[in-house]
């Protein structure tokens, strides 16, 4: 192993870090410090979690009763379209990029990202496309209202005929989001490959780094086709081409291929880093090494590979021939294998551990519980004959919210609590955290578990009204949704008050093993600066009594003195 595997010029480069670390103005500037950008991402996306949640509560308010009586159906359609779009492009993608920014450099011992200016530019695109997307509420005719899939020819209808319309702004915002994501992905992958600390071979990287790498690889492969599809859709909508318009000989189903070729793997872009968070946190709070580190690491890229060849399972009932349905059923079900490896590894990590149930661990356990359930309904949806019945019903809505909120959302909260002391330098309040967990777990279960039965009974998704036999499931779902709204109160209270006046956090409050915990809380600009530790062990050496890095005492002492 060479002594260093990153370019020394990066370390010596004059690094633009305006302002002192306690200068709050840096969060509103074009700052190139990955830790500042990470917090910018996370705070921005949490704001949009509230926006998306508010939209969801109006949607659930409409669904509280069978008839369409709360808002006009056109408004309902716009609201649920924007709910999905905001939650994906303004909450989940940015918040996970926030984690990438905070964790990738600190976990691999790099001073910053490989391309700090590109990194800041990628973040500042978020407010730009957020403004475009939010501005579309005021476009003539209202925002996009064809669902976040924007399937043509529905999305091309443009009833008022204006050039600037909700759908136009929506495509523009999604394309900008894609550009921002590609800029981020180039940066994250380069940083992981080129800037690891001396001694940190691939099989000494923490699992979060593995999963971030696997996820960002999907972004690099999948986003170009989606962007191509979006450009064609924009041309069909605004310039009269007919790539997807049947009147001009176009094929509306072609768009579905472009769309799902990226948008199914996109789920893995979101869930892989959360698998990384689970893999980081279970060992810390079970006080045990991660069970089968290498299997878990490799399984990440198994998921990346399989995610590329499953997209047509969204199209089992569009008239796809049987051979195609069968191939995609097989590939989709195969995803259960690498994800199963991870789930069993986490269970193996808990086994004979010494479990500490603080807030991050509770969110991890809740997320794992929900993910096992979501995995099972996922295999059901992959089964062609079952999907032909439950596809496009509330069952699908229930399934993907079990993945996207009850797993990914839980993992995100776990990560926020776990690394809060590290990056703010303050402890959060455990009691409020537990209240947040209990409300979130009950609310989420009540919201989405009953909808599975509504779907099995045949309630389509995206409806503004429904037959009365579905009322009971929807009433329960709406109560759960409002409860999730309430759950955000202790969370906001905790984050704001802890960051403002929480107790000072020590460098390593959880006695965790990892490079980021050898830094002071919060870490200084450029992290380890000139003294980058040399990694000598696999991560997660809990109970093994082996040092992670050469001269570990020095780094521990230095982090405490800072």
């Amino acid at each position, binding site marked *: 192993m060479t002594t260093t595997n990153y370019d020394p010029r990066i370390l010596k480069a004059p690094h633009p870090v305006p302002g002192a670390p306690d200068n709050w103005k840096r969060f509103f500037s074009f700052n190139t410090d990955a830790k500042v950008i990470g917090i910018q991402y996370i705070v921005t996306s949490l704001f949009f979690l509230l926006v998306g949640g508010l939209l969801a509560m109006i949607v659930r308010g409409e669904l509280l009763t069978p008839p369409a009586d709360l808002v006009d159906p*056109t408004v309902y359609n716009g609201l649920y379209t924007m709910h999905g779009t905001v939650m994906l492009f303004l909450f989940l993608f940015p918040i996970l990029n926030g984690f990438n920014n905070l964790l990738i450099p600190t976990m691999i011992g790099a001073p910053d990202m490989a391309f700090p200016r590109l990194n800041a530019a990628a973040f500042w695109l978020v407010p730009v496309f957020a403004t475009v997307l939010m501005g579309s509420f005021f476009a003539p005719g209202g925002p996009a209202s064809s669902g976040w899939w924007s399937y043509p*020819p529905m999305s091309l209808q443009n*009833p008022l005929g204006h050039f600037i319309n909700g759908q136009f702004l929506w495509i523009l915002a999604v394309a900008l989001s894609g550009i921002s994501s590609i800029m981020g992905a180039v940066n994250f992958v380069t940083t992981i490959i080129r800037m690891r600390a001396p001694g940190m071979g691939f099989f000494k990287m923490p699992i979060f780094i593995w999963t971030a790498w696997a996820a960002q690889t999907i972004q690099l492969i999948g986003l170009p086709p989606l962007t191509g599809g979006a450009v064609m859709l924009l041309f069909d909508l605004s310039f009269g081409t007919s790539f997807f318009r049947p009147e001009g000989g176009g094929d509306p189903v072609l768009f579905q291929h472009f769309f799902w070729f990226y948008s199914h793997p996109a789920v893995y872009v979101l869930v892989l880093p959360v698998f990384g968070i689970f893999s980081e946190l279970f060992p810390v709070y079970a006080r045990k090494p991660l069970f089968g*580190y290498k299997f878990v690491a490799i399984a990440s890229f198994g998921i990346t590979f399989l995610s590329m060849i499953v997209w047509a399972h969204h199209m089992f009932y569009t008239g796809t021939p049987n051979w195609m349905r069968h191939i995609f059923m097989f590939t989709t079900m195969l995803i*259960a294998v690498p994800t199963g490896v991870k789930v069993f590894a986490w*269970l193996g990590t808990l086994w004979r551990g010494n479990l500490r149930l603080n807030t991050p661990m509770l969110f991890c356990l809740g997320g794992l519980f929900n993910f096992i359930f979501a995995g099972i309904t996922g295999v*059901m949806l992959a089964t062609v004959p079952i999907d032909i019945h439950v596809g*496009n019903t509330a069952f699908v809505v229930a399934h993907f919210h079990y993945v996207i909120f009850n797993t990914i959302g839980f993992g995100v909260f776990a990560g926020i609590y776990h690394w809060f002391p590290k990056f703010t330098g303050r402890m959060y309040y455990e009691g409020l955290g537990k209240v947040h967990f209990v409300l979130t777990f009950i609310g989420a279960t009540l919201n989405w578990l009953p909808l599975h039965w509504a779907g099995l009974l*045949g309630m389509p998704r995206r409806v503004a009204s*429904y037959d009365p036999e579905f009322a009971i499931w929807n009433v329960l779902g709406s109560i759960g949704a409002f409860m999730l709204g309430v759950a955000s109160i202790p969370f906001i209270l905790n984050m704001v008050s802890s960051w403002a006046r929480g107790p000072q956090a020590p460098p390593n409050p959880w006695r965790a093993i990892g490079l980021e915990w050898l830094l002071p809380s919060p870490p200084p600009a450029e992290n380890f600066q000139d003294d980058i530790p040399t990694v000598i062990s696999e991560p997660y050496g809990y109970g093994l009594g082996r040092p992670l890095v050469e001269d570990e005492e020095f780094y521990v002492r230095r982090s405490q003195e800072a």
Partner: protein
Amino acid sequence: MTSTTPKKSPNIGAIVIITIAVGLNLVIAKMMANWSYSWFPPQASSAAPYVDDLFALETGIGSFIFFGCTGFMGWVLLFNRAGKYDESDGAPIEGNTKLEITWTIIPLVTVFLIATYSMNVNMKLQTLGPKHKYAIGTDPTVLIAKDPKADIGPIDVIARQWSWEFIYPNGVRSSELHLPVDQRVNFRLISEDVIHSFFVPAFRLKQDIIPGSIISYSLTPTKEGRFRLRDAMFSGAYFSQNQTNVVVESEATYTNWLKTTASQPLQPGLDPGRALYDRRLARGDKGWATVPPAPPPQVNDPGDPSIPHDA
């Protein structure tokens, strides 16, 4: 990466507990599988029993995995909690290669078996016929030959924003879909505007209707009753209203209906989005933009949406 636990003689207590747990889990899984049949609407087509059986099988396997894993989590939470001031580490087990290979191979074999079985079931359903593209404005029905196995049809199913129209081979037009029980019926699915989906939950069948394509589709109703036909692919403002009924009746009733309806004059059919659109116009066209509903289809039998449906 091997287990650090030294080899020891089998622990009788552990074996008994695991056997009881697995046995209990099997019983629960079987109960869940049996219970799952009640989560569906009645079985009203020849496809429904296959779908429900497959779902019950996966519910059984899924329940076994779910309760197995979460039961394990429950056990760990009960017996492996750290005390308040206990800062010690757990057993430093880094992995067990044999176990890891096992839990890679078993899911692999399981999903392979499920997928193979599902593939066979899918081949038995045989609902989807040929799909042909056509130029908008031409008559697509000439492109599709009659399903040779079908007893009835082809019935043209025309989906619009937001209404359904069914045209029978003898020229009868209806807003509700009347079908004789236990006869294979063939449809030609046509959309005049956006993508719709022909979804009858009691039949467990769903097929998207793609504008610019005509799709041949066949199914066999097996139970008499009134079942909801719901548009399942989002189709715009009044998507959730775009529903009608499928009336499955005895062959005699069906023949009689076809004969008497043929003599009925054409009249505006079911147009479920219209009332909400009129309400919107009455309120000053407030709300976000929508295309207006297509004119109601002219049909011989407009149906009666006030009769309650069975599922």
